[in-house]
């Protein structure tokens, strides 16, 4: 039991150090736009479900023109890895 607890503590500590992404990389994670910080952790940029636009239509996380990801009107979403 003691070994299991130690292993869990070690895994928990190490998981805080593991880089899971490359700094400045962006992605869509469901309705969220996320960006990778210097420590290799995903930080949330915005929730596209929260966005209110002038015409009241839905917004989605999509690839943006500059190579990143952003919340855009659903009709402007050009494919890619948008979800």
């Amino acid at each position, binding site marked *: 039991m003691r070994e299991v607890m130690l292993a869990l503590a070690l895994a928990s500590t190490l998981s805080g150090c593991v880089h899971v992404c490359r*700094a*400045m990389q962006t992605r869509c994670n469901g309705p969220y736009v996320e960006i990778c910080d*210097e420590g290799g952790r995903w930080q949330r*940029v915005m929730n596209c479900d929260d*966005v209110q636009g*002038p015409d009241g239509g839905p917004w989605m996380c999509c690839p943006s023109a500059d190579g990143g*990801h952003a*919340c855009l009107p659903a009709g402007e979403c050009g494919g890619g890895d948008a979800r």
Partner: protein
Amino acid sequence: MSGRPRGASFEPTPETVRALWRHMTGLYGTRVVDKASAVEMRLAAFALGKMGVLDPEAFMRRYTTTVGRRIYVPFEVGRPWRSHDLWSQIVVCAHEHQHVEQLLRDGWLRFAGRYLLSSAARAAYEAEAYRSNLELAFWRTGEVPDPGRLAARLRDYGCTDADVAMARRMLELSAETVRRGGVANRASQKVIAWLEAHALGPEREGIA
């Protein structure tokens, strides 16, 4: 989005600014506190100065600070003072209440822990709140302020160059949304809704 900005006819008055702050503090259960007379803020300024994070004088005079539901302001709401003109007080109102949104969304422990212990998380929280500055500027002028200039302010928050670069990128991505008329921050949505209902001029009819 094209045409005239929705808030183009808006001219802030002291009464409007006070009424907006009353509305927002009522919605969120927040309280405005005079920063200059708050002992806890003087202690915080002293500590930040000792740690080399921020000049105590700048902290007290230039920065609004939100702790929980207390908003410590370096100005009197509705009275233009130094760099805090009436419009800037409206922007501050949205920005600080977005921090309260973060507190409600993430919970006290997670928000305070991440904000205080991780400079990257602090940069992300601040970049989100600075999105309110972009959203309100676009509503009024149809233009988006320079994300780089806003992100550079984070150097005063103990953020590293990498944090500032990430915050800048976050604001650039946000600007893509803002330029299409999208408003993501709930505090901005509430401020804009109130301004459009209570404070737009007679030219409101026929806005884009």
